[in-house]
């Protein structure tokens, strides 16, 4: 037990949290952007998986990291565009379509894996490039903090920077404004000449881009191979993370950190003599608990806010009406 605590309060643990956070934060932002557009994309799992696969395959055969990156992004974005086509053009239910695409991705990656490598489990036989890790100058020299923050995979830093870019996009650009407007009242957007379907498609493509980066990190950073169903539900935990984060950039990052913390603890507890199946359950269990607690809180908060408005708001309503009269 003591060993466990000393390892949890170690520098390595802090480092592990950021490492585990990366493949949650990316898809969580994908969920957030698509939800804001009013078409929640729960095909993150499949999009990540397919990006992870094509990244490794293209990387291994071309030897180029850039081509691997492009292939991964193209695969995931294409998958999300197919989802968009079903949802926006054919008017199919987006959740059912996404579930279908998740299963499709799981199947097609294994199928292609076997076709290409003759192995149904993983690509460990392929020499695939990985994204480099980066030591941040100066920061790396700071004791403790440097060890936690520096030396991560470049995609981890991309994830953190993306939170800021995501914020800029959604709240400081016309496209972001339009995505939000389309999500809140598509008729209103339509009435001022905004192409609703196109805007939603952009949001879905963006979610595909985020999913791709998350998937690529898994197979070309976290580890250096692709294995069957390696996303292991991260695309779904991301839904919880984005929901807890209120679909907001910073909130999504904080809740992703929270889930990463839980996952990291699970990894460390594995050193104790507890059946590993139970330990693997922890992050999912915490997800359920966290969602229940937070939505209960949110409900209570909403009630309190309304009660406060009721208490203080009546007068000002009257005033407004009175002035409206004159």
């Amino acid at each position, binding site marked *: 037990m003591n060993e466990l605590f000393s390892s949890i309060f170690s520098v390595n643990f802090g480092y592990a949290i950021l490492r585990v956070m990366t493949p949650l934060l990316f898809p969580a932002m994908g969920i957030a952007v698509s939800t804001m557009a009013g078409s929640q994309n729960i095909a993150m799992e499949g999009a990540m998986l397919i990006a992870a696969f094509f990244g490794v395959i293209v990387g291994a055969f071309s030897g180029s990291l850039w081509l691997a990156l492009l292939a991964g992004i193209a695969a995931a974005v294409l998958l999300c565009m197919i989802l968009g086509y079903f949802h926006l053009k054919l008017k199919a239910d987006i959740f059912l379509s996404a579930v279908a695409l998740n299963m499709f991705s799981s199947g097609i990656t294994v199928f292609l894996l076997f076709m290409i490598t003759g192995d149904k489990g993983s690509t460990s036989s392929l020499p695939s490039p990985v994204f480099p890790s980066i030591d941040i100058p100066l920061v790396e020299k700071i004791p403790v903090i440097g060890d936690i923050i520096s030396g991560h995979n470049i995609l981890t830093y991309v994830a953190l920077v993306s939170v800021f870019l995501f914020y*800029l996009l959604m709240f*400081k*650009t*016309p496209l*972001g*404004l*339009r995505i*939000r*407007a389309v999500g*809140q*009242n598509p*008729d*209103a*957007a*339509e*009435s*001022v*000449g*905004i192409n609703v379907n196109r805007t939603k498609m952009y949001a879905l493509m963006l979610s595909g881009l985020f999913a791709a980066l998350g998937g690529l990190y898994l197979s070309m950073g976290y580890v250096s191979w692709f294995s069957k169903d390696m996303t292991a539900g991260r695309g779904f935990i991301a839904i919880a993370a984005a929901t807890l984060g209120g679909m907001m950039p910073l909130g999504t990052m904080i809740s992703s950190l929270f889930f990463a913390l839980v996952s990291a603890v699970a990894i460390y507890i594995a050193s104790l003599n507890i059946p590993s199946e139970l330990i693997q359950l922890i992050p999912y269990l915490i997800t359920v608990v966290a969602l229940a607690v937070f939505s209960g809180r949110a*409900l209570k908060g*909403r*009630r*309190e806010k*309304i*009660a406060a408005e*009721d208490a203080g708001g*009546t007068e000002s*309503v*009257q005033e*407004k*009406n*009175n002035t*409206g*009269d004159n």
Partner: protein
Amino acid sequence: MSNNILDIKEIFKVYPDGVIANRNVSMDVQENSIHALVGENGAGKSTLMKVLFGITPYQGGSIEYKGSEVKFSNPREAIAAGIGMVHQHLMLAPDLTVAENLILGMEPLRGKLFLDADEAVRICREASEKYGLAVPAEKKIRDLPIGVRQRVEILKALARNAEVLILDEPTAVLTPQETDVLFKTLDGLKAAGKTIIFITHKLSEVTRVADRITVMRDAQAIITRDMDDLDEVKIASLMVGRKINTERIPAPVKIGSVKLSVRDLKYTNSDGVEALKGIDLDVRSGEILGLAGVEGNGQTELVEIIAGLMAPDSGSVTIDGTSVLSLTPRQIREAGLAHIPEDRMENGVAEVASVEENLIVDRYYKPEYNTRGRLYWKLITEKSKELIKKFNILTKSSKTNVGSLSGGNIQKVVVARELTSNPGVIIAAQPTRGVDIGSEELIHNLLKQARDEGKAVFLISADLDEVLKLSNRVVVFYDGEITAHFKDASKVEDVDLGPYMLGIKKEDAASGKMDS
């Protein structure tokens, strides 16, 4: 007629289902005027405006705008040409600010990439000042009352340089006071050189603000002329093709004992809002109690609790002295309640079921209609045909799906079922919402008839004319409370109700109880 800004000629529009919505409709609109477009529901007013605004294609006719022929294929083109439309359901994103909604689709940029939020607010303030329409630029739409939201919507059109402004039933959601403000706004816009086309079926509004009028009936334009000496009665008769009664119905002869009684009813909804703060009221046999109020002040909750669709936090509801709160809706109905729900598509009918199925849905289980689960369809069809005839329901047959009928006829199906269940208490929530004037008159007469037969009628309506026309007593609802009780409705005018509806005035200890 050289100062016509719009000349609509012989528009012919048939919908894919074969309904002719506009039959060679012509209408000219003079520049810088307020033009009222009136007609019953389904007369084709909204369709005509949709044609003009480029929302829907049409089959024949032409539109001349500012002297040259135009044909807009989408709203964007209409907006670009200087035509703006304020829809009945406001087109605003609730979580965006007023300024953001205003500049949506024509966002000012800072640099090449970013939105210029300051410029957005400036554009909003400038437009707001220019047209004298006060709006809080940086507040979210969600936090604004409906009247202000509508102002934002008007401003949105003006900021896009609209010269012709189409308003689709703008007063439907407003209180009398908010309506006054809107009309002042319209006068101001006219003074600023704008042309306003304003769709309504409230005739008092037409006589108040319109310069010219077009009356539509049965997909045709009956007349377009200056208002001059037109009054409400004349317009009404043009609209329906006959004179209708705008008088109040005579007071009841015989009022009996209390049938429905509500005491100290409290309800807090799932958002923590106290929707009902201790309601007391009585409805007696042989009278109509009207409940006036802006929608969303607890009326829906009150009705649904009485009908057994929701449970209150505390209080009591009795019908004929029996408490009904713990009963199921069917038991409550058997205790003598009929309920014409406010949302007929949600709670009134099953859209995909036939007219006859909908007519027997509250009684099919009775021995009269079945033996051990086998329904007597012959009898059901027969009885349904009687009701269809008696209630003047326009349907191809009793087996037609209710969903394919017009709103007025669907409502008649609901009314036919509810009034023939031999109730002692009738709750009529928004009984004539969205129905044509003919059906409205029929439903009003039926309610009056029920009253004269000694039933207790509780009428809930956002339409003050309706409340005042039918009721003998009126209570006013605001924010989950009864703010006034008028024991003699014949002495009340709609302006008397306004301050109570807005919560500006409140009678001490007001309730709908009958003492003695």
